[in-house]
C-alpha cells in the first residue's frame, strides 16, 4: 500500500514536471519565433504533406526508426523495375492494337481490325458514286 501511495505521488509529480517543462519550452519557442518576425502563410494540405514526407524520409534512416532496405533488381529499386515493366507491357499492347490492321492479325476480309485500305474499299462499295437518277 505504501508503494502504491509512492507510485501515485510519482505519477502526479512526474506528469506535472513533464507538462511544466514542455509548457516552458513552448513559451520559449513562441518567443524565439516572434523574434523571427516571419509571417504565417496558409499552405495547402498537399504542399504540407509533401514537405512532411521529405522530413519523414530522412528520419526513416534513424536507427530504431528503421524501415527495411528496399529490394533491388540489378541495382535499381524493385518497385521502379515493376513500374517500368508494367508500362512497357501496356505500351506493347497499345502498339499491337494500333498496328493490328497493318500486320493483319485478323483474317483478310474480317470485320474486325480492317485496314484503312480495306475500310475505304468497303465504304466505296456501300456508297454509290454515280450521280443519282442515272
Amino acid at each position: 500500500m505504501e508503494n502504491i501511495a509512492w507510485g501515485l505521488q510519482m505519477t502526479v509529480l512526474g506528469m506535472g514536471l513533464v507538462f511544466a517543462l514542455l509548457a516552458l519550452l513552448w513559451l520559449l519557442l513562441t518567443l524565439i519565433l516572434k523574434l523571427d518576425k516571419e509571417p504565417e502563410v496558409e499552405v495547402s494540405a498537399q504542399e504540407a504533406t509533401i514537405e512532411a514526407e521529405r522530413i519523414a524520409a530522412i528520419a526513416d534512416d534513424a536507427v530504431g526508426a528503421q524501415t527495411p532496405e528496399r529490394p533491388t533488381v540489378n541495382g535499381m529499386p524493385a518497385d521502379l523495375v515493376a513500374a517500368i515493366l508494367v508500362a512497357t507491357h501496356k505500351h506493347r499492347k497499345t502498339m499491337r492494337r494500333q498496328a493490328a490492321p497493318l500486320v493483319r492479325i485478323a483474317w483478310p476480309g474480317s470485320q474486325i481490325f480492317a485496314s484503312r485500305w480495306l475500310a475505304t474499299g468497303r465504304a466505296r462499295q456501300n456508297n454509290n458514286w454515280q450521280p443519282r437518277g442515272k
Partner: protein
Amino acid sequence: MIDQETIGLLLKGVNGVTWQSLVMIGISFVLFYLAIAKDYEPLLLLPIGAGCLLANLPLSPLVASDGMLKVLYDMGVGNEMFPLLIFIGIGALTDFGPLLENPKFVLLGAAGQFGIFLTLLLALLLGFTTNEAASIGIIGAIDGPTSIYVSGILAPHMLGPITVAAYSYMSLVPIIMPPVVYFLTTKQERAIRMPYSSRKISRRTRILFPIIVIALVGTLVPFATPLIGMLMLGNLMKESGVVERLTKASSNEIANAVTLFLGLAIGSTMVGTDFLKPSTLFILVLGLLAFGLDCAAGVLFAKVLNWITGGKVNPIIGAAGISAFPMAARVCQRIAQEEDFENFLLMHAMGANAAGQVASVVAGGVVLALMGAGG
C-alpha cells in the same frame, strides 16, 4: 586410448545443454523470424537475436568474463555509452521543423508520456520493486535508447526483456495504435480537417532550438542531461551545417557500428536462467499496456484541445505524441485517410511526433530524477 575423461570432454557441450538454453535458442529464432521475414526493426532485432543465440549456446566463451559479448556489454551498455551514441545519430537525422512551426503541439508530446506513470503503478501492484516498476514504465516512452538508458541504471537485471519489449512495440506501432484511436474517437472526429499555416523557420531559430532545449532541460532536470544533450548535439550539428562530416558519421558509420554492438550486448543479457521467469511475461504485457495507455492519453488530450479550439484539432494526432518517429505520424495519417481520403494530417502529426521524441527523453530524465538515480 580414448578414456572416459576424453569422452566427457568431447561431450561437454552436449552435456551443457539445458532446457532454458533450448527455449532461449528458440526465442532467438523468433527474433530472427521477426527481423528477416517480418521486417520488424531488423537492424536491432537481428543482432539481439544473434547475441541471444550466442549467449545461450552451451558453455559459450563469448559470455565468459573476458568474452567478446561481455566486453561489449561492459564497454557500452554497463556505462550507458551506446544508447547515448545512438541518440547523437537520431538527433542528426531528425528535423524538428514541424514542431517549430506549431510549438503548441509540444503539449501533445507531454500527454503521450502518461502511460509511463500508469504502468509504473500497475507494476507496483504486481509486486515489482520501485526501481523495477520505473524501468518497466519507461517502456511507455516507446523510445529504445531511453528505455535502455533508464533501465540500465535502475534495473540492469531486467535490461534484456525491457529492450526487446521496447523495440518490438516500436515496430508494432501500425498494429497497436489504430484500435486505440478507433476506440476513443468518433467518425466525425477522425474526419476533422486541420488547416495548415506555414512559416519560414530561420537558421538562427533552428540552431537556437537544440541549445535552448539542452540548457532548459539540463538545468531543470539534470538527470536528463546525457539523453537530451546527445539528442540535441546531433541536431545542432545537423542544423549548423558546418560539420557535415561529423553529422554524416554520427548518423551512418557510428550509429551503424553502435547498433550492432548494442544489439549483440543486449542479446547476450538474455540468458535462459535469468530471462525465463514469470516477471519477463509481466514486463512484456505491461510494456504493451504502457504503449496503449500512451496513445489513449494522447488522443484524450487532443480531444480536450479540440474542444478548447472549437473543433480545430483532429484527436488522431494525439496518438502521435510518442517517440516512434516518424512511424507514429504516418499511422495517424493513414487512419485519417481511411475516413476521408483527402484529409492530410501528416505535418501536424509530425509536429506531435517530434514533440513526443523530446518529451520521452524529458520523461526519462524526470523518472531518474524522482528515483534519485543517474547523476
